[in-house]
């Protein structure tokens, strides 16, 4: 497939840009932060109206079936203004698990409400500080009535606002193995489940979940018992690449703001951007961003095509993007100088969000390691 956007995709990008610039400028994030709130239900409603909640959901279940290249464009624009929403968890990662593992009944029952934005889903996966899906230890013990879930989940993005959870649990084998994992649907009000949310540096809330013998019906298991890994891996690839797309927007915007500053700000009687040492650093960052754009686009296409090299491309894109985003926000703050360190100025928000997004669905080290392993070394 050619590495260019087709006309439909370009139109989506343009409409995404104007919607997000209008409805969710960086100042919205600041307001939410100052009010101690994580998200804006109005913005969520707007995203649903734009159809974004259903971009990846099949038409038969109320979605647009537009594909992941389109989704990537939406996340890139969201990254540019640091728009905060449960879009990634709910409409892309959880919906992918439901679409892949669910039976017809489950899909018909659950997907339309995701596509419409009515139900918000969160993925309860991590139990460790460093991303390691196979380390899942939370147990789902089978009995006559279904399963009893016991254990803890950490760092659950959007866990504070989701109505529904997809919980990854171990029905077999030891923690550290890819087999023996199952996926369950759990209501946020389930008995025995307690949810505690606290803010991260990017002002988004993450939840800690405690499962104290939470009862789950057998009918609320998605797919076969112990066989969730393949679908989980795909959903996590989707999460990794879309968070890479968001990082692309964050980095590109931080870079452009820095370029603007370099052109306008004067020191020693000349524009700061006339200093060759800064010019060369800016040029190097530009090259890195060009590579990132290609990497992200290709990985998105690979998800759409379900290409055999999907996972390796996903890890390449996330690793490259995480490293470049770090460079971009570091250079942005450094080149802005003192003003870049102030809360009053927006650039710090980009640094904070980049750090959080870089961790989501695996950081640089996780993906560089996986990239090597999948490459045979």
């Amino acid at each position, binding site marked *: 497939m050619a590495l260019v956007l087709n006309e439909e995709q370009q139109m989506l990008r343009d409409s995404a840009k104007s919607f997000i610039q209008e409805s969710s400028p960086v100042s919205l994030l600041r307001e939410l932060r100052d009010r101690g709130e994580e998200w804006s239900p109005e913005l969520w409603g707007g995203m649903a109206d734009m159809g974004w909640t259903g971009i990846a959901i099949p038409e038969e279940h109320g979605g647009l079936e537009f594909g992941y290249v389109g989704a990537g464009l939406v996340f890139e624009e969201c990254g540019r203004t640091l728009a905060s929403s449960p879009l990634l968890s709910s409409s892309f990662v959880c919906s992918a698990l439901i679409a892949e593992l669910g039976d017809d009944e489950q899909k018909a029952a659950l997907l339309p409400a995701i596509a419409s934005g009515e139900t918000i889903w969160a993925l309860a996966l*991590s139990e*460790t*500080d*460093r*991303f390691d899906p196979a380390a899942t230890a939370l147990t789902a013990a089978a009995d006559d009535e279904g399963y009893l879930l016991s254990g803890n989940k*950490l*760092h659950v993005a959007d866990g504070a606002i989701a109505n529904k959870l997809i919980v990854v649990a171990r029905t077999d084998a030891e923690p550290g193995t890819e087999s023996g994992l199952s996926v369950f649907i759990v209501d946020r009000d389930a008995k025995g489940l307690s949810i505690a949310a*606290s*803010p*991260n*540096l*990017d*002002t988004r809330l*993450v939840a800690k979940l405690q499962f104290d013998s939470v009862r789950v019906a057998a009918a609320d298991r998605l797919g076969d018992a112990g066989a969730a890994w393949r679908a989980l891996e795909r959903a996590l690839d989707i999460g990794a690449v879309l968070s890479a797309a968001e990082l692309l927007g964050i980095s590109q915007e931080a870079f452009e703001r820095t370029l603007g500053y370099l052109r306008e*700000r004067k*020191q*020693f009687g000349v524009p*700061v951007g006339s*200093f060759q*040492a*800064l010019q060369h650093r800016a040029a190097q960052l530009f090259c890195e961003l060009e590579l990132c754009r290609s990497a992200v686009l290709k990985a998105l296409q690979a998800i759409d095509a379900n290409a055999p090299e999907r996972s390796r491309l996903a890890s390449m894109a996330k690793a490259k993007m995480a490293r470049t985003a*770090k460079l971009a926000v*570091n250079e942005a*703050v*450094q080149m802005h*100088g*003192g003003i*870049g*360190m*102030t*809360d*009053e100025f927006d650039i*710090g928000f980009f*640094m*904070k969000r980049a*750090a*959080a997004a870089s*961790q989501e669905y695996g*950081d*640089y*080290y996780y993906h*560089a*390691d996986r990239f090597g392993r999948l490459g045979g070394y």
Partner: protein
Amino acid sequence: MSDADTFRQETRAWLEENCPASMRRAVKSDKDQCWGGRNWVFESEDQKIWLERMAERGWTAPQWPVEYGGGGLSRQEAKILQEEMASIVARRPLESFGIDMLGPALFKFASEEQKQRFIPPIVRGEIRWCQGYSEPNAGSDLASLQTRADDQGDHYLVNGSKIWTSYADKSDWIFCLVRTDFDAPKHQGISFLLFDMASPGVSTNPIKLISGNSPFCETVFENVRVPKENLVGELNKGWDIAKYLLTHERQMIGGFGLSRAGSKSTGRTAAQVIGTSDGRLADGGLRADIAAFEIDEMAFALTVERVVDEAKAGQGTGAASSVLKLYGTELNKLRNELLMSIGGSGALPWGSEENATLAQHWLRSKGNSIEGGSSEIQLNIIAKRILGLPA
């Protein structure tokens, strides 16, 4: 027994008797530090006693002359005092820009009268000082400062504003660069003034940082009257004092890298958090980055040591401060990046101003390579002054 050994024994005994138990704990947060000054509220009676006892011996400024209230210790004695304090984890009784920065400049540039007037209260922690250097529109071009002091016969009238003044809102006096000649080349019209922050016309406004803390202020001067005797050094020669102080400050900030070098190894922290396999950190990529960092950290700590030893041996190049400032701050930023990677998602939570999280320390560290002369400025200095590369 040698003099040194005697001094060590006496010091140990004195500390044992005089350092309150609660002052023998490592500083955990900003609150644990004592800055003194007119408005200081002691955290505890112990904190007050500890400051008073140490100040009485002049040991808040151990090597300063006794006649100005200092401890009058030799370099060797001061080192012994430091070692003995470290061995019981005694806190520094007083944090002070007066001691770390202004004092050395006063000894070098001030009149005898000024020394007698200003130094003893610094030693006793009675007056808390802040520095007024950077200005809102100057950035790295410090010498382009615009705060003016107009000669009004018996006093100067100061107008303008400063930025990045550390703790200006909590300080009693300021040492301040002002322009006294607007026609001279920019480095030649600057003077060095001292004045009371309680003077009419001084206002301060804390600046909130991306880390959530507000250690710096913007400080505005509107028709502030400053007596002429508060001018330090010659009129229009203030840039010499500024350069002297900047060199000093660079070494302090660069020392960040060192001050933590003695603390826990980043690699061992990682090994505890992440675990090892076959004696190696379980994450091979992160391990490689940590090893590269720790190699640099060790070589940097050795370089600080070498610079000190060379200076003692009279072999110093004098060029070291920019190297240390540049490298020390870049290393500190890198250490924070690695700690964030080690912590993973567990390093992302946001805390409060009082209980800052790893993420907040990481964000704060980004300023290290901007404040006190940015990394770019240090690179310029090294290239031109040390390497002699052409303009």
